[in-house]
């Protein structure tokens, strides 16, 4: 089954749309799509008021649904929230909280993602071809656990607080990450191909690979060895910490630089 949603022109396109119903499960009942509603600001709208809906075929399970979202999608929030299966393809940018609490399935984003992509994710895969904003694959403010499972891959850069409170799963950033990636992380794997700043503060467990330079490296990590790894092979420093938090996390770093 393939569902294509194309945004219609809106009177005020900057008002965010709370679109937590844009998940494969919502389209299993073919007549149900007409009755779905989303909130545009403080107004409740029918899905067909905001989108042209085009449906091909049918599906028994979420896994058989492919949902394509097209057009001016940068203000859509919470797309893919709690989804359990199937595939969502976003052809442009996506708004905040995409894929939060998702359990399974795949979200592909062709453009950039706003903050909180894959927040508190439990399983499944998210791939973002552009950049991701702050709090990529993180926990929610005040929560003690972040992403617990699944894979998030960003091909561009990521913002600050990437993989904050990471508690499982794998996060890969192909570009640079911002300030404080892996802060408070407890388990799971974080890979940053580029540079970042002040990595892994208060980390208690898990593994982090940073293939670029860590600026303002925190002094509360103890260097425990070196290893040649990567492609092409290069020497990496191995750190453990965060000692200030009696942490037992491990960081593999290509280059690092303390705050002078």
């Amino acid at each position, binding site marked *: 089954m393939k569902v294509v949603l194309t945004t219609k022109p809106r009177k005020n396109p900057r008002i965010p749309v709370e679109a937590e119903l844009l998940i494969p499960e919502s389209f299993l009942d073919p007549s149900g799509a007409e009755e779905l509603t989303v909130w545009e600001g403080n107004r409740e709208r029918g899905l067909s008021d905001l989108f042209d809906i085009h449906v091909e075929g049918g599906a028994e399970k979420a896994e058989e649904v492919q949902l394509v979202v097209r057009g001016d999608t940068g203000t859509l929030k919470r797309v893919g929230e709690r989804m359990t299966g199937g595939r969502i393809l976003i052809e442009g940018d996506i708004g905040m909280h995409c894929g939060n609490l998702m359990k399974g399935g795949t979200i592909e984003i062709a453009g950039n993602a706003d903050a909180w992509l894959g927040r508190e994710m439990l399983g499944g895969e998210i791939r973002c071809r552009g950049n991701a904003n702050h709090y990529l694959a993180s926990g*929610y*403010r*005040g*929560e*003690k656990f972040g992403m617990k499972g699944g894979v998030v891959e960003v091909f561009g850069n990521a913002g600050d607080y990437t993989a904050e409170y990471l508690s499982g799963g794998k996060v890969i950033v192909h570009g640079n990450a911002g300030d404080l990636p892996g802060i408070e992380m407890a388990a799971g794997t974080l890979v940053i191909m580029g540079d970042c700043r002040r990595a892994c503060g208060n980390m208690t467990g898990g593994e982090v690979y940073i293939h670029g330079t860590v600026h303002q490296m925190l002094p509360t990590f103890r260097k425990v060895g070196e290893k040649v790894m990567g492609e092409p092979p290069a020497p990496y420093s191995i750190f453990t910490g965060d000692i200030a938090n009696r942490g037992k996390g491990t960081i593999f770093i290509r280059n690092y630089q303390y705050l002078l």
Partner: protein
Amino acid sequence: MAELLVKNACVIDPLQGIEGDIMDIAIRDGRIVESVRNGAEVIDAQGFLTMPGGIDSHTHICGTKVNFGRYMSPEDMRAGRTVKRGKMHATSGYSVPTTYGNSYRYSVMGYTTVLEGAMAPLEARHTHEEFSATPLQDTMANTLFDGNWPVMEAVKEGDLKRVAAIVAWILEAVKGFAIKLTNPGGTEAWGWGKNVECIRDTVPYFGVTPAEIILSLVKANEMLRLPHSVHLHCNRLGIPGNYSCTIGTFDLIPDLNRNRQSLYATHVQFHSYGGSSWPDINSKAEPVAYAVNRKPQIVIDMGQMMFGKTTTMTADGPMEFNLYRLYHNKWSNHDVELETTSGIIPVLYRRKNLVNCVMWSIGLELALLVKNPWQCLLSTDNPNGAPFVKYPEIIALLMSRPYREKEFATLHPHTGSRVLLPSIDRELDWNEIAVMTRAGQSRALGIDRIGKGHLRAGAEADIAIYPLRIGDTDPSREYEKVIGAFRKTMWTIKRGRVVARDGEILVEGKNATIWVRPTVPEPYRMEQDPDFVRNFERYYTVRMSNYPVQHHYIPRNICIETEAVL
């Protein structure tokens, strides 16, 4: 003229001495009157239990601290969600719900007046703003003076009149209701990374002791003729062996007022621990209750702890730090300039935990061992001991020994050797419960004079009608029925209007804030005192002219004016 007649109500009104008489209550324009004309709207109470609206004399529902509790606990905000329905706003949260959540849940339980237990004067605006979004209860705010620099300086100089004058200026400026002391002296010591052990320790720099602060403010309170007494959270909260500090504090207090107590000691459950460390903690409710029994000048509230998740929040910063070291969970800590501190951590009270089981027993023991119910009021120090939605269960526990035994059987097996609850036979009656949930509060807060907590002609028409006939109910055996009835009123009437009916909120509502304005003689006006003004401008981050809360923050209010005798 809006008129309402409540017919066939089985009234319990301790302040009037009515114990279960069937009578009619006439209401006109929000007040109780002798009679109304034919044609008034009629509610047939069918002999159901009818009491004045409930009053909570110590709860934390509005202000910066509560709001930070919401902010740091998304897991709490994810519980207890209700959607917008009719006149009801959407709500969320369990132990620290949204303001509307608090207001609706209190109203459904028949509560019409609440007192916010701790408002930092500097942050009063936030409290008043949240009060105006707590529409179904009249509200008051205890104002914190525990670590107030000018007050401590005046105490050091032994100038009681100046203490009173400073209190008067601040209370009027922040639209507060009463003097609250939270770990007096200890909150200032916390600014130095320290705490005070008990009432005889000195506060760093200021060189005063908690005993001096408490006694000075108790006396100043009477000089200002405030409606309520000093509202004290004793030193050493939550530390095994603290009962002796609590009793020592009670021994300080002279009997200064004929109409009410001279000291209101709050959440005394947290202050009645024996032993020397957590492993040997035991209940010292008996000596504490004995001290209360022979001192009519003291009123306490239980601060009952109930099992489950909640959030602890208090101005007692050092105590919260100790808790944080026990739990290693989230912790918030805050310093309020010249005034006080605060701390917040979420907790889970468990039946498997011996300390928690002892705490649970102590609260009940206090309520059962204090002979006069006017001296021990029902509270959980919401949300510190438990969210206030647990009140019906506490009422049932106090009224039913079998229910206590049933609950006790589920506790940690060693609890029995640490507490005396199993040996207490007392079961409270309906009248005593009415005292502990409304009449006692009304008298202790001194708001019986403005028509709260009773149904005399002229009183505010705040009435709760519970779906229970006291004649057909044996609370000892039918405790489930008691819990069910106190959870949900049939009608809650606020200011002469039905605001809640069978758990549904019917109106938007609008609160009134009760505050005091003590008038002091000309030489004691602090805004003209050069020392006070200079230090204010020097140490605060706000200008003195920006400090007072403007009147538009309390659009509907009841001002209690007093004439100070200095």
